């Protein structure tokens, strides 16, 4: 009797699998890999990026006429293709990113990969794509080196560290000229990774151009147990300005350690780091106030310049992530929308045709601050734009450039012992 039940159960299970398989096979789908650090030290940001891509896929697959976003009104792509996101986790490790990219292209058969947040992971994963002549679209990785390789299948939305560094030093020049701030020295604190090191290199170049003397150069190992020595080194050098590149938990540890030793520079500007993550800022509460950072999105900025992003956030992203977009995660959604438009323009799910469109066309992008996306040879988005914000009371206030400015900056940063 038991044997009969077991055989019947096996047949049922097999039947379900076979039926499910044929159902999927009948559907017209375009598989897109979403390769992010879903576990490991950068998991918070990786999960946000994944949720952002899932939100964009939902927007593409459904019919939402109330959104003024390309691909929202029609359901799916071309004549009814649905976008299916295949998730993959590289744990923040370059070697895992490489093998996961190989798996996604070769075994999962994805048409393109979107990812991979950490520049150190994006680099080997996109090399796999280039060798296989497959598309790799990158939202947030900011290492300038990624788009200096003359790759043909790699496209990146984010402004590079070089662009951000120039923007930071432009701002310092502006402050020195119009606010008489006399910022003369610079300290750098950054994680000792592809991202951090390139950010620091670009910062040094930009600083040299405006005669800003780098008096402290402090790399650190990410996921550190403490940042006491690092902050002591900064404190001893006492630079007027600090540029920071510390992700997630390291960012909050850095801020808290500066509070602990009762020291602050006069101005602290961050690359795409824990600064941009609303969840990290919420945990830091008032301690995060007066820090600055380069951003392509903030809810405050979006109200004036990217209203559609807020609508997408409310309907698709918030239910998944339970928080607002941040600058990094939003860019991953943008890249899926750009890829969707390229497929539409190419008229086929054909890598070469889509690559050609990506390389030559300009895409409407209401979810980008510039409103448009276009790629130069090498894959960098020439329309990439970011602003400098300063956080106060958990709100990102735009302070530079002047055409986006909604608040006056607080300069110098209010010392720890003068805060409420």
């Amino acid at each position: 009797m038991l044997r009969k039940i077991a055989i019947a159960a096996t047949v049922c299970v097999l039947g379900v699998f076979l039926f499910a398989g044929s159902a999927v096979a009948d559907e017209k789908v375009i598989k897109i890999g979403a390769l992010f650090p879903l576990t490991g030290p950068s998991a918070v940001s990786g999960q946000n990026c994944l949720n952002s891509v899932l939100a964009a896929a939902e927007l593409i697959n459904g019919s939402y006429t109330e959104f003024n976003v390309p691909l929202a009104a029609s359901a799916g792509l071309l004549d009814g293709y649905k976008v299916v996101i295949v998730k993959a986790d590289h744990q923040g490790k370059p070697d895992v990113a490489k093998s996961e990219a190989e798996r996604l292209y070769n075994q999962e058969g994805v048409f393109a990969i979107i990812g991979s947040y950490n520049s150190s992971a994006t680099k080997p994963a996109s090399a796999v794509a280039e060798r296989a002549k497959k598309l790799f679209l990158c939202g947030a990785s900011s290492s300038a080196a990624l788009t200096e390789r003359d790759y043909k299948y790699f496209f990146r939305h984010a402004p590079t560290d070089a662009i951000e560094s120039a923007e930071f030093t432009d701002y310092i020049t502006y402050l020195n000229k119009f606010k008489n701030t006399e910022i003369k020295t610079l300290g750098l604190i950054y994680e000792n990774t592809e991202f951090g090191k390139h950010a620091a290199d670009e910062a040094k170049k930009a600083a040299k151009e405006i005669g800003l003397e780098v008096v402290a150069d402090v790399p650190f190992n990410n996921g550190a147990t403490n940042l006491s020595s690092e902050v002591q080194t900064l404190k001893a050098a006492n630079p007027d300005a600090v540029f920071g590149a510390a992700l997630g938990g390291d960012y909050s540890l850095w801020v808290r350690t500066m509070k602990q030793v009762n020291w602050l520079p006069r101005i602290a500007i961050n690359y795409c780091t824990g600064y941009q993550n609303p969840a990290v800022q919420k945990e830091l509460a008032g301690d995060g106030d007066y820090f600055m950072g380069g951003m392509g999105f903030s809810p405050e900025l979006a109200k004036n310049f990217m209203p559609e992003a807020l609508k997408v956030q409310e309907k698709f992203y918030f239910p998944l992530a339970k928080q607002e977009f941040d600058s990094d995660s939003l860019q991953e959604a943008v890249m899926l929308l750009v890829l969707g438009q390229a497929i539409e323009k190419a008229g086929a799910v054909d890598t070469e045709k889509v690559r050609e469109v990506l390389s030559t066309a300009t895409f409407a992008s209401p979810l980008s601050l510039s409103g448009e996306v276009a790629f130069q040879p090498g894959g960098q988005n020439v329309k990439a734009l970011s602003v400098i914000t300063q956080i106060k009371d958990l709100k990102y206030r735009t302070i530079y450039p002047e055409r986006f400015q909604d608040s006056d900056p607080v300069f110098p940063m209010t010392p720890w012992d003068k805060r409420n």
Partner: protein
Amino acid sequence: MMSSFLQVLLDGLLNGLVYALVAAGLSMIWGVMDVINFAHGEFLMVGMYVSYWIGFFLNVDPLYSWIAAGIFLFILGAVTYRLIIRNSLGKSAMAPLLATFGLSMVLKNFCMNRFTPNFRLLSGTILEGKTISVGGAILSVPQLVTALFALVVLGVLYWMLKKTRLGWAIQATAMDSEAAELMGIRTENIYLLVFGIGGACVGITGGLMTSYLAVYPEVGSLFSLIAFVVVALGGFGSIPGALLAALLIGLVESFSGFYVAAVVKYVAVFAVYIAVILVRPRGLFGW
């Protein structure tokens, strides 16, 4: 210049004391049972989450919630022994190692799944932002309190091991479990207790650390690596050894980080470890 030196010195000592408390439990388990608990860092992470959630939902400060974290981790340690370690002892030497490695994955991914990878920091704690000045150096009170707790807990552990019948029984079991059994010591219970105490030590540390450190699923990784170094450097099973080794590690980390380069501080830590192990393979106080 002098105040920088003092600051670096005190930072190193405070960090070292915290490492000592993290390592104490690991040292006992390793010394008594010859089992490497690969989930030790995740025990620390669980202790931090216990304290965090108690603080978040019940508004209990880490100054008090460390008790709950200690008790919870004692139970977790004891349950780990009963369900996992006991079944893997006496088999291949790799069995308990792989079993605890598996447990570490389960705990980390469970927390990742349930609590998301978000960094969680308790704000508004009693000691938050409090500092004291010692000769120009600034000490964080939450870290100082954790360090003082470490001294007290290590003192109690040492006293228990040296002066009580239970401690003698633990030492006897560590030296020769069969002989201890013949003398009427229930080694099964001793093992369970040792795993529980090991868990409680790291639970207390985690509970207190939430007053100044963000909690996230990966938070225990580097702490556990340093704890392994501390235990091997101090000598397996030796509490004074763990304390001295941890202080040494804390000072090396702090001085190399400030006077050489911040990025080499962990390199210096592991270099010292390798140097000591080459000269004295059983560690500073090992038998």
